[in-house]
């Protein structure tokens, strides 16, 4: 008998295969098959859905509520949509601290107000103590599209630029530390943040992004591999331009983590045409959450999906879909 392993939900190869072999096989339809972060359900309405199960639910730099709001907003932003409504499902373990719950809700309210999203319905369940741990949140977001075309595009051109809006891995490291799965002294804050503003800014500056995706589970590797698969194209990433956080880098060195597989919750990968790339980066650099944006790669060939990583000193390697769960290694 097979059992579901953690890898199935970790955004890597196993998740991807599960979606392909089990979900698409059963539920395939043109909206779903686009495999966007959300669905274009009409000319201008976009719907996204996501579950948040992070444990522990409080970590340096955020909590599960901020994560849920940001995740919902970022999924909509990835479809170039402005959030308008949301629904919220809460599943809470019996005995859960009431003050923790209200703190999480307070933080969500601040973001809902800041981004003008209305909660229109919701559901709350409490499960017996020990049947789950802490609190889980499921969110559905509804937004209106800000551009006249549907994202993500399927068509790309050689020379299109890949932009990354900041350093990688802060979220995973912050959560692993909160979990005590890794131990070190030093402050590493999750990058969790809503990224609507950066998409809004790009679009109001007249830039036409071809692909926007927030980097979550599976990390940068998963996003660029999905992009490569989506457009059937070869992408080359130049490691020397990838923004790097020195502490995350050190932790990756110590534990043998692959930085490209670590999750972020406040970073976007954006594809724009070569002509627009310079302007796009300068717009992004003016916004705090994307101030370290850089062009990190480009589409070099159409026809076959492949992601190549050019190392800082001229070597080349394959950037593969991550395997799943982030594990420390000794060799």
């Amino acid at each position, binding site marked *: 008998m*097979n*059992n*579901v*392993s*953690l*890898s199935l939900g970790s955004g890597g190869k196993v998740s991807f295969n599960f979606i392909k072999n089990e979900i698409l096989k059963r539920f395939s339809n043109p909206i779903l098959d686009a495999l966007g972060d959300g669905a274009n359900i009409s000319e201008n309405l976009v719907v996204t859905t996501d579950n948040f199960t992070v444990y522990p639910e409080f970590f340096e730099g955020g909590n599960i509520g901020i994560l849920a709001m940001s995740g919902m907003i970022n999924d909509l932003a990835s479809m170039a949509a402005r959030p308008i409504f949301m629904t919220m499902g809460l599943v809470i373990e019996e005995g859960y601290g009431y003050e923790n719950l209200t703190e999480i809700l307070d933080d969500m309210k601040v973001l809902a107000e800041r981004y003008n999203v209305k909660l229109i319905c919701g559901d709350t369940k409490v499960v017996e103590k020990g049947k789950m741990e802490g609190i889980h949140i499921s969110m559905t977001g509804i937004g209106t599209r800000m551009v006249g075309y549907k994202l993500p595009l399927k068509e790309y051109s050689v020379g299109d630029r890949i932009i990354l809006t900041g350093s990688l891995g802060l979220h995973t490291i912050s959560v692993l530390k909160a979990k005590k*799965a*890794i*131990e070190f002294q030093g402050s590493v804050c999750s990058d969790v943040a809503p990224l609507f503003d950066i998409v809004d800014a790009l679009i109001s500056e007249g830039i036409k992004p071809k692909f926007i995706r927030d980097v979550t589970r599976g990390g940068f590797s998963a996003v660029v591999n999905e992009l490569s698969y989506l457009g059937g194209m070869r992408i080359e990433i130049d490691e*020397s331009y990838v923004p790097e956080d020195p502490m995350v880098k050190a932790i990756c060195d110590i*534990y*043998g983590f692959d930085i490209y597989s670590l999750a972020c919750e406040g970073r976007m990968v954006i594809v724009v045409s070569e002509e627009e790339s310079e302007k796009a980066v300068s717009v992004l650099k003016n916004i705090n959450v994307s101030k370290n944006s850089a062009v990190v790669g480009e589409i070099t060939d159409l026809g076959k999906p*492949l992601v190549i*990583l*050019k*190392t*800082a*000193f*001229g*070597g*080349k*390697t*394959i950037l*593969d879909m991550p*395997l799943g*769960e982030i*594990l*420390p*290694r*000794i*060799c």
Partner: protein
Amino acid sequence: MNLEIFKDKELIRKSFQALKNRVKKFNNIRIMEFCGTHTHNIFQYGFRESFLPNLRFIAGPGCPVCVTSEEDLAEVKYLFDNFDLGVIAYGDLLRVPLQGKSLMDFRAEGRSVEVVYSAIDSIRIAESNKDKQWVFLGVGFETTMPATAAAIIMAEKKGIKNLSFLSFHKNTKAILKALSTFEKLYADGVMLPGHVSAVTGYNYFKDIEMFHLPAVVVGFEPLDIIAGINELLNMIEAGENGIRSAYPRAVKEEGNPKMLKAMEDSFYKKDAPWRGIGIVPEGGFEIKDQYSFYNARVKYRIPQNLPVQKSSGCKCGEVLIGRIEPGECPLFKKICTPENPIGPCMVSHEGTCLAYYKWAEIIS
């Protein structure tokens, strides 16, 4: 002098370019890296394909997790099947197929599987979960064994009763000797493992002299690997054999005596199975009798010769010595795939077979 210079991208870029130019003057050089971390870094730094066709790398038997055998893993399965206990392991081991299942699969079934960064962490786990019995899976070569030795010694000192150790530790000196029973190494030079050598000293690998090949102890930074290859080319050019260290800041002739003693005090050598290679005389380490209370094999009376399922026909041994290329193995791509790896060369994320599997289309 500090170590920052090893991160100097401009120096790395120039050295790499210079080495590429130099390699062009050589024909069909084959360099075997003994150590899995070399394999990993050579891949990660993008070196693997950079020197083709003049120089190619052959990944030797140097990943202790990949060579953990079906027989070893059958013991873990036996423990899970017969006892209600938790297992503590290094993250590397979680995905390794273990008689049809992996540790991840066992965890998914609700078994306790704790991942640690150090063997020493197993003490903390045992102390804070006293109502449960724990078994630490000791994988690794001579570099990693001292941590297991330290944990065993600490466990005894603290009188911990709910922790034992299953040693799958492997002996790198023995595998070198075993490889010599093949008629030769199909390589022009060997990169010796920097971190095993840091513990043992490079004299430990003196047996390599029987291959009449140049051998260089190499570190792990890009500059170390570049310098190591360069040194091997120097030796190849001059027709010199023997061992040199291109990693002298960590490795000299003699190793770390205290660690060697701790290992000797707690382990003895025994014949042991290596995945894809078979029984290697003195190829493994077992916990000494004085610590038998901490030896899971004794504590749980694990039977010898547990039944194991094994695919026959795996030619990893020959891939490891460079006699054949992965494509010449009858299982390659047919039965043995990244999702269902048979031998260590496919288990390892950067093993030779997996690398060929991934790169085949790009190379051609």
